[in-house]
């Protein structure tokens, strides 16, 4: 069975004659939460509509046709459309569309409304709901049909904390069931907490990430530090981070805050990991270095440093970064 939800190559999309999207290559795995992060106008909505099958690429190749994507996906807009009628009607309509029998429909409606904490508003007109409630209803409506791919455009925009947490909870529930969720946001905290993978968009193009991003849990904390235990395909690792009382789910380390040394050194950097260079890639006047330290860390260095340390793939190296460089989400 194909483990990819989508694979696209040399894909372009034009609004009239303006290029809105240009993607050389992108593949997204099934069963994970993928977040598109980017500012307004970066092409987030366009790519989400394409992944939902609502718009067709102007050029390029995809492993699924738009029709197939439309059948498998449900998209929730940033400002979701509520059908005129009650909260119940909004879900009942889409369930009827799927030819679900009345008894089952009632069960599903009650269940998803409870999950979205909207059950007490079941007979309320959808148009009378607040912005956060509408967003929750739209997601509940989407979840009610249990889509293979749930696609959410800016689900956290202009909503209160309660709605934000409830929506995050609904996304976590899908993640636990290993269902594919794709969302866009420009909210870093939500993105890093929810995502298994983050894709950065800028001016309609996929942008080179500038941060190492790992999922995991805080395993120990004291007055000075907390240690972040991260699991990955490559292994487990503990990263020292600033002290925090909150429950964090992800750690982010900017490439630029990592420095490389040939030998183990005495320094104030709390994180010092040994590893092997697995990839050295030139981009302009700088190099992106990927080091396998149990998990893969990336650093960005100048071509002068590459020459000075005679860096090449498979070379052993030490990766250093301060606990304060580690951002917890």
């Amino acid at each position: 069975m194909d483990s990819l939800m989508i694979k696209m190559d040399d894909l372009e999309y034009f609004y009239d004659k303006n290029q809105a999207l240009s993607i050389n290559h992108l593949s997204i795995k099934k069963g994970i939460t993928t977040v598109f992060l980017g500012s307004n106008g970066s092409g987030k909505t366009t790519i989400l509509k394409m992944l939902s099958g609502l718009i067709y690429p102007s050029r390029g190749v995809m492993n699924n046709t738009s029709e197939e994507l439309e059948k498998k996906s449900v998209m929730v807009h940033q400002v979701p459309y509520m059908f005129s009628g009650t909260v119940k009607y909004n879900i009942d309509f889409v369930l009827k569309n799927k030819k679900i029998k009345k008894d089952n429909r009632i069960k599903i409606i009650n269940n998803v409304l409870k999950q979205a904490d909207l059950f007490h508003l079941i007979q309320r007109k959808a148009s009378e709901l607040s912005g956060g409630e509408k967003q929750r209803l739209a997601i509940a409506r989407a979840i009610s049909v249990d889509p293979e791919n749930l696609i959410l455009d800016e689900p956290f925009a202009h909503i209160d904390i309660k709605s934000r947490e409830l929506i995050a909870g609904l996304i976590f529930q899908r993640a636990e069931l290993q269902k594919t969720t794709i969302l866009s946001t420009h909210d870093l905290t939500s993105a890093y907490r929810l995502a298994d993978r983050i894709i950065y968009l800028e001016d309609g193009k996929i942008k080179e990430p500038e941060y190492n991003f790992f999922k995991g849990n805080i395993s120990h904390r004291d007055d000075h530090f907390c240690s972040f235990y991260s699991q990955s395909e490559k292994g487990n690792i503990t990263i020292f981070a600033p002290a925090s009382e909150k429950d964090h789910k992800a750690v982010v380390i900017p490439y630029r805050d990592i420095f490389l040394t040939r030998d183990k050194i005495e320094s104030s950097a709390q994180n010092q990991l040994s590893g092997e260079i697995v990839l050295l890639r030139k981009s302009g006047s700088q190099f992106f270095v990927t080091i396998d330290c149990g998990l893969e860390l990336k650093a960005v260095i100048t071509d002068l440093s590459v020459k000075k340390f005679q860096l090449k793939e498979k070379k052993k190296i030490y990766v250093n970064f301060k606990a304060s460089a580690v951002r917890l989400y």
Partner: protein
Amino acid sequence: MVFVKAVALILSMDKEVLFISMTSLSMAVTSTIIATIPALFLGTILSIKKFPGKSIVIIILNSLMAMPTVVIGLIIYSMISRSGPLGQLGLLFTPWAIIIGQSVLSFPIITSLVYSALSKVDIELTETLDTFGTGRFKKLYMIFRESRIAVLSAILSGFGRVIGEVGVSMMLGGNIRWFTRTITTTIALETSKGEFELALALGIVLIFISFTVNTLLHIGVKSHG
């Protein structure tokens, strides 16, 4: 004094006031229904389909919205008069002649406003329906359902145009007493004779009809959502 007499005519359920009012109302309702069916069809086609000459059709429809009623009356008169191509049907100076004229009068208004209403449908609505795999006919039903107030307004605008017109009714109906006399033709006639009681009574009835229609629309808007 004239006003009191006019009110008395209405309250006493004067037979002529009643007949004229019912004639006007039934012809306006019938012509609006006849015009609405093709207008909904064409308005929908214009809003969802792209075809060559579409903008020309829209320009023509918009131009026809402002067409003077006497010109429409004249064109249809030339067609249904004894020497016209449809003269043998004997429609001239019958209620059907008025209904045909009023249907022609309201058709471009309803079509144009339905097109305008459906064109303004949120892209989020159509995309939401698509993302949930809504079939073509159900999608169309939902678009109409969600735009029902605007569509209803379009139909009522057509009705408003025909209930208050005088040119078509006068030219094609002939203003024949107890047969094709309508509220507006009676008002025109009675006023020219200097007999204002009946004219005023019918004017009040016309205002009442207009008020009722708008009230119903307002209630519809309030309950929408």
